[in-house]
């Protein structure tokens, strides 16, 4: 998770205007590692969900995390495709906004993820039968 968020933080910081000398077409070369790590979080996330399905599925915070995560990963894919083209054809203002949105989404993902452990009110599915 730290690698996925970390690489997105690096790209996000660059897009909002920090370290402008970093060429956008080069920084996306970290994305293959990002996607390998995304597979790892998908597998470990599914394992955690399978271990305590009721705990997560009955908690609205879980859906907040999932939504932020999916949109965040969607934005990563968008950046990866968009930044491959020549820098002069890129709408910098739009990318700046999307970069800020991406950073916000990862903060939400992390915060919601941590709050999951403190906000559940159901632990086992056996509560329902």
């Amino acid at each position, binding site marked *: 998770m*730290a690698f996925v*968020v*970390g*690489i997105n*933080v*690096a790209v996000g910081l660059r897009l909002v205007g920090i370290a402008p*000398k970093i060429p956008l077409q080069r920084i996306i070369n970290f994305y293959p590692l990002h996607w390998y790590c995304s597979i790892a979080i998908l597998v470990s996330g599914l394992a955690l969900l399978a271990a305590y399905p009721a705990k997560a599925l009955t908690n609205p915070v879980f859906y907040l995390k999932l939504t932020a995560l999916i949109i965040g990963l969607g934005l990563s894919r968008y950046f990866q495709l968009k930044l491959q083209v020549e820098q002069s054809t890129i709408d910098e203002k739009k990318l700046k906004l999307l970069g800020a949105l991406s950073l916000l989404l990862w903060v939400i993902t*992390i915060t919601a993820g*941590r709050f999951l452990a*403190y906000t559940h009110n159901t632990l086992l599915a056996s509560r329902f039968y």
Partner: protein
Amino acid sequence: MLELLSNFSQITGIYWFMNSPWGWPVAESIHFFGLCLLLGTVGVFDLRMLGMANGLSYEALHKLVPWGVVGYLLNVTTGTMFLTTSPDQYLFNPAFQTKLFFMLIAGLNMLLFYFTTAAAVKSTPAIITLPNRARTIAAISLLCWCGVIVCGRLITYFRPPYHWCFWC
């Protein structure tokens, strides 16, 4: 030591904050975001030194590292909040001790980097592969930060006195 840390927590109001309904998870969220900042800047720079993202300027990428320092400061602050609120759960915890060991190695490794290698790395053209010395420093840094993350997660699962460790 326990008393000293506890008193610090009580006097500064950390204990009160951490025992408020959302104090602990808020501090944890900031702690994890600090780690992501660290890995997203220092870790990404380490990966670059190891040869990933070939063609990306070392000097330009290094401009992100100050944000890693911000992440590190966030971690030290929130880490101090955890430690002083429940010092007995950390001081005798082998996962915490191992985490501190990795942090120490990472710190010494960083000093070695800035005193011996950083200037040469930053002036190296983007298409040139770095010498083994710089690559070794990057690998140690990356391994240490991964170790810090893993040990940080394990702290929850090794609560004293239920788990024995030879130095406790």
